[in-house]
């Protein structure tokens, strides 16, 4: 027997096929002999069943290729990591390098306040600054620090003063001058009535051809922030700042009834929210595993919520900002988080919810951000916010030629300030409104992450310390933790963050039609209409191949037979 044996004739091949094929119907069609009626009947039947089959197949495949998903919910209760917690003291540091300009700016603010609201409004501000400068002068001349009252502030100042010499070398304050072009004006709003007015400042493009006002209903916060941004942009990324001590903010830290450890926090300075500390930012230390719900097993902090007012016009909120977020995530404090009041014990119950998206064909999402078109400027894990900020920063660099101060910079770029780019404000506000109106394609470029943890919080508050206990509590803090206030002002706060329940609700996307079920469905249809299987199709293929080979063979033979005795070869 040969390796592959071919049929002697087409007839033989067909006969063989029709005898041995497993496809139902066909064998009858071919083999029902000369009975034409029968043949026609079977042909019709075969065609009809084929049509039904492929119609059903088409339905199923179109359904499959639409990649429908079902949402499934599940409750998990396995032990998990405590989330990362970021706390900020809402007291941005007054950088020595820009302090002179800052004072100038404050003076300008005072002038504006006087101009807009009368001389009374700026009195307090004046007073504050005078106190500030007086203290500075004190320190310079006497060099003696009043340890009890303002120790921390002053030591900070002393440190910066010491490092100012080196700092001054790479920073030339002469290059920057506060611009007088952006003065505040008041406009009466005709629609809102007589006593309603708006305050705003004018922003123009470089040629001055296009201008608009940035209007705000009250105050000069936005105006101050605008100038402050310009000012801070001088310092560039990662300005030299004095080392911060967590003791300045956190008096006591306990987790699971055990003290936190030195490695447990990360510090960064936010230009608006001040000194921030992130606990458990990596989420890898087994110390932070949450095994039980309840207040005793949560993170308990005693915080200093003193109002030091380094920059009074910027920090208008007293307290501490707390944000609960996932590990390895950049905390966007301007978007999320909540405030802790001084003099209050806040207990925050959290519950974790998870969202898992399928991604791939089933929807747009990204697992680690590697496949996103936008270059991420944050070196933390991917989040939608991080992507949007990065996208905006890139757009800003393209359109305005400089970077927005509150977002990180890509390599080789500079932050915007109006001494270099006088028109950046105009450019920025326009771009920002484009982003808001979804006219910037950032929302298209930034998919959602495939796995997201959401933390639902609910809070309870109680007065702390109580009237009866506050004396000894304050005394203990004063004696041990460098708590310096002697008055009974509300300047300490307590926060407890705990899991309300360890059950987390996870929302999953699951394919409605998996490959497995699709195949099952197809098999059912095939069996139902056609009674054949994949192997029958292979049989058909074999038949086709055989027919082809036979045809070629015969052609070749006929050619040879024709050319052999007939026409003489060209040779």
């Amino acid at each position, binding site marked *: 027997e040969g390796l592959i044996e071919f049929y002697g004739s087409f007839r033989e091949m067909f006969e063989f096929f029709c005898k041995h094929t497993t496809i139902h119907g066909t064998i009858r069609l071919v083999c029902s002999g000369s009975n034409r009626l029968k043949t026609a009947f079977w042909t019709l039947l075969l065609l009809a069943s084929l049509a039904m089959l492929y119609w059903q197949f088409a339905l199923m495949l179109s359904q499959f290729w639409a990649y429908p998903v079902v949402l499934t919910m599940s409750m998990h209760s396995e032990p998990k990591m405590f989330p990362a917690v970021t706390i900020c003291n809402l007291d941005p540091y007054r950088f020595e390098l820009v302090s002179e300009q800052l004072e100038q700016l404050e003076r300008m603010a005072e002038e504006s306040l006087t101009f807009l609201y009368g001389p009374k409004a700026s009195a307090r501000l004046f007073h504050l600054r005078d106190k500030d400068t007086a203290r500075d002068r004190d320190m310079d001349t006497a060099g003696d620090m009043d340890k009890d009252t303002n120790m921390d502030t002053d030591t900070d100042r002393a440190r910066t003063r010491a490092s100012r010499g080196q700092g001054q070398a790479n920073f030339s304050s002469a290059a920057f001058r506060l611009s007088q072009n952006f003065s505040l004006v008041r406009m009466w709003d005709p629609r809102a009535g007589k006593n309603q007015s708006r305050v705003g400042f004018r922003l123009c493009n470089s040629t001055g051809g296009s201008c608009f006002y940035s209007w705000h209903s009250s105050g000069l916060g936005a105006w101050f922030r605008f100038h402050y941004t310009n000012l801070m942009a001088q310092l560039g990324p990662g300005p030299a700042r004095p080392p911060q001590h967590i003791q300045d903010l956190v008096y006591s830290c306990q987790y699971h009834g055990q003290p936190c450890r030195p490695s447990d926090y990360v510090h960064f300075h936010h230009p608006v929210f001040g000194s921030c500390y992130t606990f458990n930012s990596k989420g890898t230390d087994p110390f932070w595993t949450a095994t039980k719900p309840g207040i005793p097993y949560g993170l308990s902090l005693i915080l200093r919520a003193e109002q030091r007012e380094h920059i009074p016009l910027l920090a208008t909120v007293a307290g501490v900002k707390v944000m609960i977020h996932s590990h390895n995530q950049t905390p966007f404090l301007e978007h999320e988080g909540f405030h802790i009041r001084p003099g209050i014990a806040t207990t925050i119950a959290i519950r974790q919810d998870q969202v898992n998206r399928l991604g791939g064909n089933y929807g747009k999402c990204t697992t680690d951000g590697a496949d996103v078109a936008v270059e991420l400027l944050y070196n933390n894990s991917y989040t939608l916010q991080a992507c949007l900020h990065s996208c905006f920063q890139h757009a800003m660099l393209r359109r305005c030629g400089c970077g927005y101060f509150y977002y990180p910079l890509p390599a080789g770029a500079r932050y915007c300030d109006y001494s270099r780019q006088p028109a950046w404000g105009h450019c920025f506000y326009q771009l920002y409104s484009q982003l808001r109106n979804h006219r910037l394609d950032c929302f298209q470029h930034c998919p959602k992450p495939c796995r997201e943890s959401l933390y639902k919080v609910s809070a309870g508050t109680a007065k702390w310390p109580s009237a009866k206990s506050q004396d000894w509590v304050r005394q203990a803090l004063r004696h041990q933790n460098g708590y310096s206030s002697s008055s009974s002002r509300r300047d300490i706060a307590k926060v407890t963050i705990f899991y309300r329940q360890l059950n987390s609700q996870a929302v999953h996307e699951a394919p409605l039609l998996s490959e497995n079920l699709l195949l099952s469905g*197809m098999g059912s249809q095939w069996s139902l209409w056609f009674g054949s299987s994949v192997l029958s199709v292979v049989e058909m293929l074999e038949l086709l191949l055989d027919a082809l080979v036979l045809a070629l063979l015969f052609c070749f033979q006929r050619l040879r037979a024709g050319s052999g005795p007939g026409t003489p070869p060209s040779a």
Partner: protein
Amino acid sequence: AATAPGKKITARLKRTLPVRGPQAPTLSELMRWYCLNTNTHGCRRIVVSRGRLRRLLWIVLTLSAVGLILWQCAELLMNYYSASVSVTVQFQKLPFPAVTICNINPYKYSAMKEYLSELDKETKKALETFYGFSEGKSKVRRSVDDWNSTGSDFFQQIPLLKVEDFSRTATDLRSGQKRKIEGSVFHKDSSIVNSGDSNDIVGFQLCDANNSSECALYTFSSGVNAIQEWYRLHYMNIMAQIPLETKEKLSYSAEDLLLTCFFDGLSCDKRHFTRFHHPLHGNCYTFNSGENGTILSTSTGGSEYGLQVVLYIDEADYNPFLVTSTGAKIMVHDQNEYPFIEDIGTEIETAAVTSIGMHFTQSRKLSKPYSDCTETGADIPVENLYNKSYSLQICLHSCFQKAMVDSCGCAQYAQPLPAGAEYCNYKKNPNWMYCYYRLHEKFVKEQLGCQQICKDACSFKEWALTTSIAQWPSIVSEDWMLRVLSWDKGQKLNKKLNKTDLANLMVFYKDLNERFISENPTNTLVILLSNFGGQLGLWMSCSVVCVIEIVEVFFIDSLSIVMRRQWQRAKKWWNGRRARGGSGKAPQAGDVERQGHDNPVCIDEDLPTFTTALRLPLPQDSPLPRTPPPNYSTLRLETAFTEQLPDTLELDRH
């Protein structure tokens, strides 16, 4: 000649009856027979295909189809126990949950004086020595000598220490003597918050009473935590000795705590509240506890139709060392659920109105084999110490209490008593605190096995709370409101109430939508079977019958053939041995072997079956040995092709 008719009959019988599996003399015959007769696709091709490669290909194809079927069916089976979740949102009249309200301070400080005066004196002394803190400026600081004369029990039991970090020496508060610390040090301080002044670390030492070298030192960075923890230990000792009735009297009565009450727009009073004594929070009052059989419900959402109470928080009567915050603690829970106020209670503030909006969710999980949860808790080997329905928290607490009784010989104060045990106090169990701390550390580190034993409950109700706070009473309404409330409170308080002693609480449904999340099995047996059928049909057009066929042929018949072979061989050997070369029996054995297809009698005369026809050996005198024509005449198919096709002719000519 005599045997001829009998033989003829058997031969005829064999011819007319189709060859059955077991009658095939060899295994290969059986396989051949199976492949030709089965309805399963693929197998037949292995036999009928021409050419070795073709055959090999078909074997591979068939086997891979079998493999695919097995793989897909395994996948179907593995996904069988999956659950889908249905969420239904119903708008209906919702039963109001039970609301438990406690004062943060458990017992009236003035009433507790007789039990706690010693301890408080000690605590004040400790504060004075450590921090130079003295209450009232008039008091003269006492000297250390005065200390020793009092012979304080508390410091002997658990000495408070000032620790010099790392040097492992500590200054005893009482004697002023430095002592070396032995045993393990448990730093309860965090060095991140440590101000660097190592003299300031305060802690206490717990020693094993039986073995005084076994000591554990607990230090805290903040004196606040250290003093409170130290105080609490002693407090629990004292409280453990007081009987429950006395404790209930020492705590707040319903009249003390509740000033006004409104529910669903109607006035309510203390009869709607059930007292419940919590070991750490004293007397708590549960609204709508369902104890009298009726559960209230609200007809409308919104703050008007919820529970609204004004609480009297007597801040002046607070224990300064036990609790440091002022306010009340509330918890919203199901009537059958035990309120773990100390774990997940929500605190509310004084001089403020706290509105708590609720959103009700009920969840139901499928129990085994879909997930590892328990319906009633009856299958958990931990005795439920609380007479409420099972929850994970109840199980964990009961488990810890049981471990405590087992290893320390007495029960922890904060949890209910198991049968036959009593609460720890150091008069009876001098060792319990060391034991407790060790055990609790094990519990937190999950070395007790409680977390492994305790499972989640399958169904639970949850009220998601949204809190908002506003100042209350407002400055303009303060005057008259306080006056009215003072009058309500009764004449015994002839002075006007202070607004920092009042808390207003509103608990209400935000909406009357009940969200019900339930898991349902995705697959049923019918779906699984139809999917199996689909897979079998898709790859091989196979069915259950063909599976039975396979079992029959490949197991039963094959086995019978092998057995028969063995039997014949044994018989032959036996006969051979007996007859010693006697050839009388041998041909008979040969006859048996030549049954079925091999029997040449079957071949010719009659109309052969499909099978026998196909497996005919090729005629030796065939003119074309390369393409042997099958014996189609048996199928009478010639009529379909009466004329010779031209290409065959051509081939012949060639």
